């Protein structure tokens, strides 16, 4: 790790794979969990229903459980032999276990509580009087949600997305437990970093990948702040 010699910063092809895969996984984990995240946030913020406490608890579960446990639960449920995994594979031909899609699932699950909470807080801050006004103008419940609530909640959605994305960039325990650490298929950046930390002389590699990961997350964060500021300025309580 010489001062002048920056060669240690160069990524191997396998590491590039990990970078690509992490981006792919984080992107899809964030995007795919967004609709459900919004729906659940809305349910928790605005609807009372029996079993609400349970749903709320379930959403928070991945935060409370050690990631290894979450990963193991996913493996049991979504593995090839798991009830949901077998069903998905037979019915739709969708296989999650030991695929990048499974890594995306693991990251989505781990980031879900963060996403839901951010969006929920934003929904709770929307003045129901505005929604009532939309009602008098002929907008039904769903239309009101889409045309009034959702745009007002945009800053919260952006916050939820960046939290989910950042979490996915760092998620390791559940992912490696669920889909293993197969280079080019399920080896994300954090898994690759972990591997480096497990052998002598891996520090430089771990540092190198950590820097890449941090740089990507910083970039995403900057973009999100920009978007959020715009959304905020637009919505800005007059």
């Amino acid at each position: 790790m010489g001062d002048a010699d920056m060669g240690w910063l160069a990524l191997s092809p396998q590491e590039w794979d990990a970078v690509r895969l992490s981006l792919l996984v984080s992107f899809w984990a964030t995007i795919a969990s967004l609709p459900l995240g919004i729906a659940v946030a809305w349910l928790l913020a605005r609807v009372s229903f029996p079993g609400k406490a349970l749903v709320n608890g379930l959403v928070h579960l991945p935060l409370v459980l050690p990631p290894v446990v979450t990963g193991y639960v996913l493996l049991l449920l979504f593995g090839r032999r798991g009830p949901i995994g077998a069903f998905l594979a037979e019915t739709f031909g969708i296989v999650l276990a030991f695929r990048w899609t499974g890594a995306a699932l693991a990251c989505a699950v781990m980031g879900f509580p963060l996403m839901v909470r951010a969006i929920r807080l934003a929904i709770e801050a929307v003045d129901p009087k505005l929604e009532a006004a939309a009602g008098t103008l002929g907008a039904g419940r769903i239309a009101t949600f889409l045309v009034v609530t959702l745009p007002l909640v945009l800053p919260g959605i952006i916050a939820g997305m960046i939290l989910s994305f950042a979490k996915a960039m760092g998620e390791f325990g559940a992912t490696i437990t669920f889909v293993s650490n197969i280079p080019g298929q399920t080896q994300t950046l954090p898994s690759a970093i972990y591997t480096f930390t497990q052998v002598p002389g891996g520090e430089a590699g771990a540092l190198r990948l950590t820097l890449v990961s941090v740089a990507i997350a910083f970039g995403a964060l900057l973009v999100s702040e920009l978007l959020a500021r715009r959304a905020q300025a637009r919505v800005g309580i007059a």
Partner: protein
Amino acid sequence: MRQDGAPTLEIALRHRLGAFDLDLAFASDAGVTALFGPSGSGKTTVVDAIAGLVRPQAGLVRIGGETLTDTEAGVLVPPHRRRIGLVFQDARLFPHLSVRTNLLFGRWFAPRSAPRVALEPVVALLGIEHLLKRRPRGLSGGERQRVAIGRALLSAPRLLVMDEPLASLDDARKQEILPYLERLRDEARVPIVYVSHSRSEVARLAGTVVLLREGRIVGRGTPREILARGEASETAPARSAARARRLGRWSPGQALNTTRPASERS
């Protein structure tokens, strides 16, 4: 559903909010019905009940013979199916939409059969041409109120309910808007419920004045009859201790002294 012969507006409400107890019933015919009364007498609560934003503990709301709220029969048509254009006391513009989009909001959701109100004349009437591209943020109080009026007008409602719509406008602007409301009343025959503290506005517009006080009707008649009376210019005394009257076997139909058509008794 319009039942000929039925009054345009039939309202009977009983609703309790903390120490405030609303208990009233009135019916009125087409034209402008003014709700008049001191601050806190329940005008906005009645407005909310008409629009379906409040579910009264007991009550009936009918427009042109169509039942919108009937707690006895378990009817509560949701606000977005009522087609009531409401000008809120507090404007309630959508902060994320331009003034133009705010104005056209109701049109997106209006049924095809609804008459289309043209944007330009309304905008010109309200003097808000220069605001169309702006967002509500930064509008002055009167500008907001004007946009709110425009938004309700453009939603092509079958009943217009206006809660102190001109309170923060200057006289000159008021003198431009009032004739428009008169035309709406006389030519387009849109019934209007008009809440105001201004005697002159009420005198000019209203066919019927309902005088409220502490949630009760204390007078009902033409502006001439009502506005002259002393009650119309007294402030409500500090509210008397909680009234013991309970919501009981009280029937909205009874309170209105109207009989419901058999078809609706179900």
